[in-house]
């Protein structure tokens, strides 16, 4: 009977879809659409001095003030960017170059092992092209940063450390970082700290001043704004060298004509996401807890990744691995049944790779291939969870059969929470 149901779902291609991938991007909020449409009807370069330019500039600056107020920053600390990736690049490269200009000995870049590629790749690029030394900070089996490793690293090498970058909340497993401790440790040694808060805004309280961070990455499309716009919130004394050079916009740190419609819509979305945060976080956490409990009941050998304590992870995030399955197979089977999720990990040249995040948590490669991330958002309802549970058990059965094709039986597996992985073993594994 299960087969028949799956078949029906397959054929019913255009049926209503359950969208469980809000961490990839979330539907644009009506208020953001409205602001965007309004602003697109106007003209004017914010850098122009005539009336149209002044009107555009006013929109940009009001949006800047609005975003700053929402995130505990001063307006002058908001640097508009094209999105999270650019903001991360600006933070990592800009702080590295700025700090090294002050003292050429500062070459070390300390980043969490589970950082997004938008932080990891600039760091490794600096290692290849600018003499940086990248230090991957290990995490525990829940994905929580190892503070002792950070402490040892700073105590031994503070004078040669350029910056620390640790994400506020992990995009795959949702783990919240012990940022207050990270900032306290780093600042004790005079080292600036950047955090990628792309996934955190709208789900947990994000406040630049209260966090003590030197720089903070946010983006619009994860909180109901349009794509193509984000910001780096950077303290004015953060030594940022620009990545993009040109017209000198954004206090010379980020050149390029500002897009008034995009920043206005971003600010409008942020207003709604941050204002509604407490209520929506509670609602989504309850929905998430229900999803996790029902998935674990339906597929008993599935393993929840990231902290089991829901308060230590993003409220809208659930991440599970399904032994014996390829995440890709699950994705296809769910998609064909109208349920949209993610494997959570990047693909390399189109080929799904075991997630570096899961490997850093100590998950073995085979289990890491069977990962699915379910992420909720402002449009999520209990019906979405129901739709998932209607098809997931059948999909897991099929994916498991497909996963067994052409593979030898599993050898002795490591336990799901097998401790610190060899890949990032000792504190400060160097690359």
């Amino acid at each position, binding site marked *: 009977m299960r087969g028949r149901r799956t078949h029906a779902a397959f054929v019913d291609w255009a049926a209503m879809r359950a969208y469980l991938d809000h961490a990839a991007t979330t539907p644009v909020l009506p208020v953001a659409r409205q602001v965007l449409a309004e602003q697109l009807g106007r003209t004017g370069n914010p850098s122009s001095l005539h009336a149209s330019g002044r009107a555009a500039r006013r929109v940009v600056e009001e949006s800047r003030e609005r975003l700053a107020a929402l995130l505990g920053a001063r307006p002058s600390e908001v640097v508009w960017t094209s999105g999270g990736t650019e903001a991360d690049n600006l933070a990592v490269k800009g702080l590295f170059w700025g700090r090294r200009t002050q003292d050429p000995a500062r070459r070390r870049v300390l980043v969490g092992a589970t950082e997004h590629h938008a932080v990891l790749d600039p760091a490794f690029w600096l290692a290849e092209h600018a003499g940086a030394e990248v230090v991957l900070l290990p995490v525990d089996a829940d994905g929580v940063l190892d503070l002792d490793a950070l402490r040892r690293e700073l105590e031994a090498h503070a004078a040669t450390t350029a910056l620390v970058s640790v994400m506020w909340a992990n995009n795959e497993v949702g783990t919240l970082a012990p940022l207050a401790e990270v900032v306290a440790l780093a600042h004790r040694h005079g080292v600036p700290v950047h955090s990628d808060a792309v996934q955190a805004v709208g789900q947990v309280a994000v406040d630049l001043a209260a966090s003590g961070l030197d720089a903070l990455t946010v983006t619009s499309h994860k909180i109901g704004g349009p794509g193509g716009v984000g910001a780096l919130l950077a303290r004015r004394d953060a030594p940022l060298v620009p990545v993009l050079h040109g017209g000198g916009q954004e206090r010379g740190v980020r050149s390029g004509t500002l897009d008034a419609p995009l920043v206005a819509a971003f600010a409008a979305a942020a207003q709604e996401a941050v204002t509604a945060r407490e209520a929506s976080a509670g609602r989504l956490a309850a929905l998430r807890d229900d999803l996790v409990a029902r998935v674990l009941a339906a597929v008993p050998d599935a393993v929840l990744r990231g902290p089991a304590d829901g308060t230590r992870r993003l409220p809208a995030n659930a991440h599970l691995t399904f032994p014996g399955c390829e995440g890709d197979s699950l994705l296809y089977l769910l998609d064909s049944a109208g349920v949209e999720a993610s494997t959570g990990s990047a693909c390399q040249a189109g080929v799904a790779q075991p997630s570096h995040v899961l490997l850093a948590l100590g998950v073995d490669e085979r289990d890491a291939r069977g990962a699915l991330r379910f992420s909720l958002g402002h449009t999520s309802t209990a019906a979405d969870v129901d739709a998932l549970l209607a098809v997931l058990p059948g999909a897991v059965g099929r994916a498991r059969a497909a996963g067994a*094709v052409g593979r030898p039986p599993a050898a002795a597996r490591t336990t799901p929470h097998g401790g610190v992985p060899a890949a990032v073993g000792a504190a400060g594994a160097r690359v």
Partner: protein
Amino acid sequence: MRVLAALSGGVDSAVAAARALDAGHEVVGVHMALSRSRDRFRTGSRGCCSIEDAGDARRAADVLGIPFYVWDLSERFEETVVADFLDEYAAGRTPNPCVRCNEHVKFSTLLDRALALGFDAVCTGHYARVAAEDDGGRSLHRARDAAKDQSYVLAVMGPDRLAHALFPLGDVASKAVVRQEAAARGLAVSEKPDSYDICFVADGDTSGFLRARLGERPGDVVDASGAVLGRHDGAYAFTVGQRKGLQLGRPAPDGRPRYVLSVEPVRNRVVVGPVEELAVGEVVADRAVWFDAPPPGAWTDALVQVRAHGTPVPARVLVPDEARPAAEGPAVPSPGGVVEVVVDEAAGLRGVAPGQSLVVYEGTRVRGQATVLRATRAGALAGGLPSTVGGGRR
């Protein structure tokens, strides 16, 4: 049916998927990533292994409006196709990696995974036809366009796999028609050049690839009498029938060109000689896969083909039975069994190397396939043949 369309990024597989869609099937596109270290862009006439090819496949799926996935089958490909390629050359044989890919990857792992996921068939852009038989089974036939026919490399899949294979291009008149159809459908790959070379050998330099993977193993180039004529860097880089690249300092006494007659991996020798020594009158092949096996113990008229796009030649084939065991079968029983083949030397079958695939046809229909164990001039088998073997000459 639910159909998984293998999309290489080329024009054939894209049009095949489009035709499957037109036929009313539910189609999902899958690109097989077969190489771990892939080039960013397609170079020359290599197959489907670059990132650009994967992108072309994805774009074709977009145009067709079908879901698209990339499946990483590189491990399986390396363990079977590439490993077999190296082993075979190291053993002095001449493998056909496309045949092994169809045997171990496309119509094995890919198909099995597709069936497990609930698909009914795998669709590819191969040029071959499938016909329904009276008994409910299916038979594999040459494509309508003989120049593009690929039944030779598909025969290895056997009847069980054929039941789940879809070749929508088997009936097209020519490749030009496929290109026109691609253009008409808005598929950007319509002008993409054909691929010929071995997909996993970068820059098409097979002997360089073999040298890199197998290491240099210098040895002698000798004539049939054993006289040393020159040196080589590795016998594996030579294949029976090869003329170029022998690098023999002095010409043959009679001034005629010399060809590789055999490769002897144990003695690390390459034996060369005149063209007439390449003539083949008898072939023994093993690892037979039959769609329609000839009755055991009886010589049967057929056509045999020993290389892709080679000319089929009339032959008599024999599947030995217990009463009449193989004349010179392998020491170890062969999975799938042995087939013996006799052809008229005048038919022009030359330079058949161990390891090549031998496909047995009746007209356009594939009867079976086996892997060449040994090819010789007329002699050994003929002695055991019924006198009617001459009837095989036409």
